[in-house]
């Protein structure tokens, strides 16, 4: 059942019960009060009428036979002085005179005694009468006097009240229900919008959002729904990017495997099928060795990447000067071979690093600079608050600014042909970026084509170095 129908049903139940119960109480109490009031009035009137009859009997004492009840004519005269319609009965309850409408029921006489007056409501024809009956004794004559008062107005009043209440009930209910329908439609509209938006999101429309126009619970729900949709959209985008990255990774990996393998297979086939001169055999073997080395480097770096993604590393505090001296010492043969001069200016501090990984990071950054054809590499390190800023700059050919965003992607190479010639696989900066992440930082590149590249990394300072 729809929510508005539930609200409607509940409202009908509550309003009907409340109005009907109130109406029932109102009408029955009013009717009871009216009947009680009429009964009181009739009993009072009976007393006046009884006095009137008694006075009449006293006035007629001389004309009445001793102990005999008055005749019809006298009783008719008595009844004409009374306010209501009356009936007179002798002491043995024989009807003497009556001007009551027919057929009146005189059974209430049975309950009457010298000290008891009986009253009863009777419906005669289409009218209701309140009968009051009692016994009177005057001047030696005993009579039963029954006075009937027409109380049809009380019954009519009740009927009128019921009719009025019927109108009030249905009009009130009708108006209330129209109001409730409008209210429930207004209340459920944002919920319906929410349901439709959820359905559209489920259908793949992740940029679906709700407009939040109120601060009530539904407004809060809409706001939370939008936050949830934002989170879902972000997650979906992230997952899509990851999936795309993985696809690119696999495609690049396959391509990077294919290129050296094509050379290896080609030269091996040539060696197998043709008789070559010793120089040609040597050249072919060199190519095969060269491509094999590339494949080995590729597999090692891939292994490193996988390890970095899976393993947790513990950072250890080290003095920065000692760290960089060790790294520079290990790279000295490379600098000499490549005829690159290294300038290092490192301020002492304690930094938190994983030594082997950090060395790999520095090696990759320096290797990148060398591959960019630089003649000088500057390494600087200085504390910066709780951080230690390391900067590696070269004067190589630089990186186009349009490529800067992608250079840390695996297998991404700015100049693929040159990179392959230098046994590059496009994994060095991806590795470096991952290592920087492990060190609680990221790589920040600033490069100008033809001028050089500066790479910055913010290491975490150790506690031992706080005082330095």
């Amino acid at each position, binding site marked *: *059942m*729809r929510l*508005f*129908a*539930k609200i*409607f*049903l509940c409202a*009908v*139940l509550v309003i*009907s*019960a409340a109005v*009907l119960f109130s*109406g*029932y109480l109102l*009408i*029955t109490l009013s*009717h*009871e009060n009216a*009947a009680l009031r009429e*009964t*009181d009035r009739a*009993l*009072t009137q009976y*007393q*006046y009428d009884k*006095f*009137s009859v*008694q*006075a009449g009997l*006293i*006035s007629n004492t001389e004309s009445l036979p001793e102990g005999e009840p008055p005749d019809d004519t006298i009783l008719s005269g008595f009844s004409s*002085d009374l306010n209501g319609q009356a009936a007179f009965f002798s002491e043995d309850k024989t009807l003497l005179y009556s001007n009551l409408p027919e057929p009146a029921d005189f059974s*209430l006489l049975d*309950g009457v005694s*010298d*000290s*008891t*007056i*009986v*009253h*009863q*409501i009777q*419906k005669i024809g289409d009218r*209701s009468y309140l009968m009051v009956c*009692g016994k009177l*004794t*005057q*001047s030696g004559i005993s009579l039963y006097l029954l006075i009937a008062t027409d109380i049809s107005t009380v*019954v009519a009043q*009740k009927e009128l009240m*019921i009719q009025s209440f*019927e109108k009030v*009930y*249905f009009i009130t*209910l009708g108006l209330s*229900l129209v109001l409730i329908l409008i209210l429930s439609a207004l209340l459920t509209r944002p919920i319906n919008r929410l349901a439709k938006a959820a359905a559209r999101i489920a259908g793949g429309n992740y940029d679906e959002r709700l407009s939040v126009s109120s601060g009530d619970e539904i407004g809060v729900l809409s706001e939370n729904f939008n936050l949830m949709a934002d989170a879902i959209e972000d997650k979906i985008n992230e997952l899509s990017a990851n999936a795309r990255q993985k696809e690119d990774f696999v495609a690049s990996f396959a391509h990077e495997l294919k290129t050296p393998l094509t050379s290896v297979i080609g030269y091996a086939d040539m060696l197998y099928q043709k008789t070559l001169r010793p120089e040609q055999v040597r050249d072919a073997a060199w190519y095969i060795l060269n491509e094999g080395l590339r494949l080995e480097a590729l597999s090692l770096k891939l292994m490193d990447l996988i390890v970095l993604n899976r393993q947790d590393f513990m950072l250890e505090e080290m003095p920065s000067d000692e760290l960089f001296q060790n790294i520079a010492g290990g790279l000295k043969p490379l600098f000499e071979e490549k005829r690159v001069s290294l300038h290092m200016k490192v301020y002492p501090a304690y930094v938190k690093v994983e030594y082997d990984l950090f060395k790999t990071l520095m090696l990759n950054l320096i290797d990148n600079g060398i591959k960019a054809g630089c003649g000088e590499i500057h390494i600087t390190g200085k504390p910066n608050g709780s951080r230690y800023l390391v900067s590696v700059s070269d004067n190589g050919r630089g990186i186009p600014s349009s490529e800067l965003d992608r250079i840390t992607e695996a297998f991404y190479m700015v100049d693929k042909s040159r990179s392959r010639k230098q046994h590059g696989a496009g994994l060095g900066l991806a590795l470096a970026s991952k290592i920087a992440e492990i060190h609680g930082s990221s790589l920040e590149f600033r490069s100008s084509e033809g001028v050089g590249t500066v790479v910055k990394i913010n290491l975490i300072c150790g506690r031992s170095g706080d005082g330095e």
Partner: protein
Amino acid sequence: MVNKQNLYTAMGIALSFIIAVGGWVLTSTLIDRKSDTLLSATGSIQVNTPPVSPIDTNDDDETPPHRPTLSETEMVKVLQNWEAVIGERPHEPVDGQLNMEQAIDAGKTGLSYFYEQGVIPAELLEYDKTNAYLCEKQPRGQENQSTNPYYSYWTITFSGENKRATLVINALTGQIWEAAFSGAGIAETEKALEAFTSYLDLGDGSSYITDGTISMKSYSDGMLYAIARSYTATTTVGEDGLEGFLRMHLSTQAQ
């Protein structure tokens, strides 16, 4: 799923209308039943049986029965009750109070007295119809309180063609505390007041005021007043075509 949802919704709305109409039918049926029960009920009330001999009468003795008398202070107290309460309630005489025959007799005696004193003409001693009822003043909401015999009064009306005498008689003492006459040949207020105060044995009073239509005497340091007021209206009644009205009564308030 949607069809089922719509079906339930339609059923819910239909149920709402059934509840609305059914509730009404049930309520009106209950009201009718309650009304039928109420209108078919028989009730009864207990009333005082009038005492057979409410006062110490002696049928063999010709002397009038001894009636208790009230002091002026007691009279003031009774009058304050009569004047303070608007509603009256008829009731049967209780012990110590006059019964109807005695009240009518007291009324007749009073009429004779006022005739003898020249207050009313002889025509007012002859009447066609007599009515009498005994009431007490009872404040609203105190209907179930027992009757105090001091505070009840008989209202006796003697009426005939173009004449009427209405007497309010204290149900305990049998004295006329208020008398209203209409008809021709009624005396002036001064004479009427003299007869009225003499009837009640009130004496001369501490002050006396008269201006022709109202005569008044005060007693008990201004706590009790005897007042007579008259006026005339032009009618076809009487020798001079004037009908007179006279009202004599006791009061705690000056006019």
